[in-house]
C-alpha cells in the first residue's frame, strides 16, 4: 500500500498548494464561465432547440477547462526542477501518476460542481431526466478523461511546447470517452425511456477507463524515466 500512500501524499501536496494560491481553479472556473457565455452567443438560450446542444456544451466545458489544469499539473513541477525531486524520492513513478491523477480529478470535480449548475441556470434548463445517473455519467467520463489526460500530460511535459502538444495527443486518444459520454448525457438529460442505451454507453466508457488506467499505470515507468 506504499503506492497509494505516496500517491495520497502527493495529491495532498498538490491540492494544498492549489488551496493556497487558487491559481488554477479560479482560472478553470472563469474559463468555464466564459465558454458558457460564448455558447450563449452561438446558441440562443431562449430557443427550445438549444436544449439539444446542452450535453455537448457540458463536455466542451469539461474538456477545455480540464486541459488547462492537466498541463499545469506537470509543468508546475518543472519550473524548479521539482520533477527530479519526485523521481528520486522513494516512490514509484506509478505513485507520481496516481497522485497527480487524484489531484487533477478532485479539481475537475470542483470545476464541474460549479460550472454545470451555472450552465443549467443560465440556459434555464429543466432537468427532465435523472440526476443520480447524470452524476454517475459525469463521474465516469471525467475519470476516463483525466486518467488518460494526466498520463499524456506527463508525456507531453517533456516537450518545450507541451501546452500545444497535449491537445493534439489527448483528443484523438480520448475520442471514445467523449463519444460515449456525450451520448449517455444526452439520453439521461432528456429521454429517460432509453435509459438502457445510456447505461450501455456508461459501461463502454467504464471499460475504457479501466483499460487506460491500467495501461497508464504500467507505461508511466517509461514516461517518467530519468
Amino acid at each position, binding site marked *: 500500500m506504499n503506492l497509494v500512500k505516496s500517491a495520497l501524499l502527493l495529491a495532498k501536496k498538490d491540492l494544498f498548494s492549489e488551496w493556497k494560491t487558487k491559481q488554477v481553479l479560479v482560472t478553470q472556473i472563469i474559463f468555464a464561465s466564459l465558454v458558457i457565455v460564448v455558447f450563449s452567443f452561438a446558441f440562443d438560450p431562449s430557443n427550445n432547440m438549444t436544449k439539444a446542444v446542452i450535453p455537448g456544451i457540458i463536455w466542451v466545458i469539461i474538456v477545455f477547462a480540464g486541459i488547462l489544469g492537466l498541463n499545469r499539473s506537470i509543468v508546475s513541477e518543472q519550473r524548479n526542477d521539482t520533477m527530479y525531486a519526485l523521481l528520486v524520492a522513494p516512490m514509484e513513478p506509478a505513485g507520481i501518476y496516481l497522485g497527480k491523477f487524484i489531484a487533477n480529478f478532485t479539481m475537475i470535480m470542483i470545476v464541474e460542481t460549479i460550472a454545470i449548475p451555472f450552465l443549467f441556470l443560465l440556459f434555464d434548463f429543466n432537468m427532465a431526466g435523472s440526476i443520480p445517473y447524470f452524476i454517475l455519467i459525469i463521474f465516469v467520463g471525467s475519470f476516463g478523461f483525466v486518467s488518460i489526460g494526466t498520463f499524456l500530460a506527463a508525456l507531453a511535459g517533456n516537450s518545450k511546447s507541451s501546452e500545444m502538444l497535449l491537445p493534439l495527443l489527448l483528443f484523438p*486518444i480520448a*475520442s471514445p470517452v467523449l463519444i*460515449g459520454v456525450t451520448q449517455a448525457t444526452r439520453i439521461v438529460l432528456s429521454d429517460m425511456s432509453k435509459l438502457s442505451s445510456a447505461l450501455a454507453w456508461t459501461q463502454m466508457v467504464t471499460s475504457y477507463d479501466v483499460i487506460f488506467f491500467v495501461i497508464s499505470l504500467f507505461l508511466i515507468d517509461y514516461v517518467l*524515466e530519468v
Partner: protein
Amino acid sequence: MSMNLEQEKPLLPDSPLSKSKSAYLPKVLLGSTIITMLTSIYFIFLYAEEEKTMGAAQKIFYFHVSSAWVAFFAFFITCLFSILFLVKRQRIYDTYAYVSAEIGVVFTIIVLTTGPIWAKSAWNTWWVWEPRLITTLILFFLYIAYIMIRQMDGVWDKKARLASVFGIIGFVDVPIVFFAIRWWQTKLHPVVFGEGSDQSGGGIAPSMLAALLISILAFTILYAYLLNKGVTLENLKIKVEQYKEKLRMDIEN
C-alpha cells in the same frame, strides 16, 4: 526526463562512412513491387468484371482497401517495434517504428482521399460520418501526433521512449475508437466481408476477389520496399550525424 544530456553519444565505429553490406534486398523488393503492381493493374482494369450498379468507380475499391490494409499493418508494426524498443532499448527498433508510422500516414492519406472520391460517386456526398471513415480520420490524427512527438527537442532516446509509449497507447485505442463509433452510428458502408450483424454483406465476384488479393499483395510488397528504404536512409542519417558530432569534438579538443 533527461534534459541535461543534450549531446549525442559519440559511439562510433572505425570508419562510419564506409558502405554497409550489399544492396541486394532493396533491388529484389523494388523488382517485385513493380511486377506485382503491374499485375494488379492488369487484374483491376482488364481482368476483374465491372460492378453493375457502381460502374467503373467501383474499381477505386481495390486501391482503397489495399491502402487501408497497409496503413493498419504499418501501425501494427509500429506498435510491435515500440514494444520491442521499450524492452530491448536498441535504436534500430525505434527506427523501424518511426519509418513504419510515417509510411502508415502516407497510406492513410491515400485512404482518406480515395474514400471521399468513391463516396461522391456512390453516395453522392464527399463525406459521411460513418464508423470506418471517422476511425481512419482519428487514426490519421493519432499518428500525426506520433510524428509530432518525434519532432520534439531533446536527445533521441527520450524521444524514442515517449514515442514508443504513444505508439502502444495509440494502437490500443484504435479498436476502441472503431467500436465506439460503430455503436454510435452505422450503415452506409457496404460490408463486403464477414457478417455485419445489422448490415447485409454485398458479396464479391471471384474475379474481383483475385484483383483485390493481388493489389493487397502488391501494396504489402511496396510497404516492405518503402520500409527498407526508409530504415536504410534513417540509419545513414544517424551515422552522418554521429560522424559530424565526432568531428566537432575533434575540432574542439
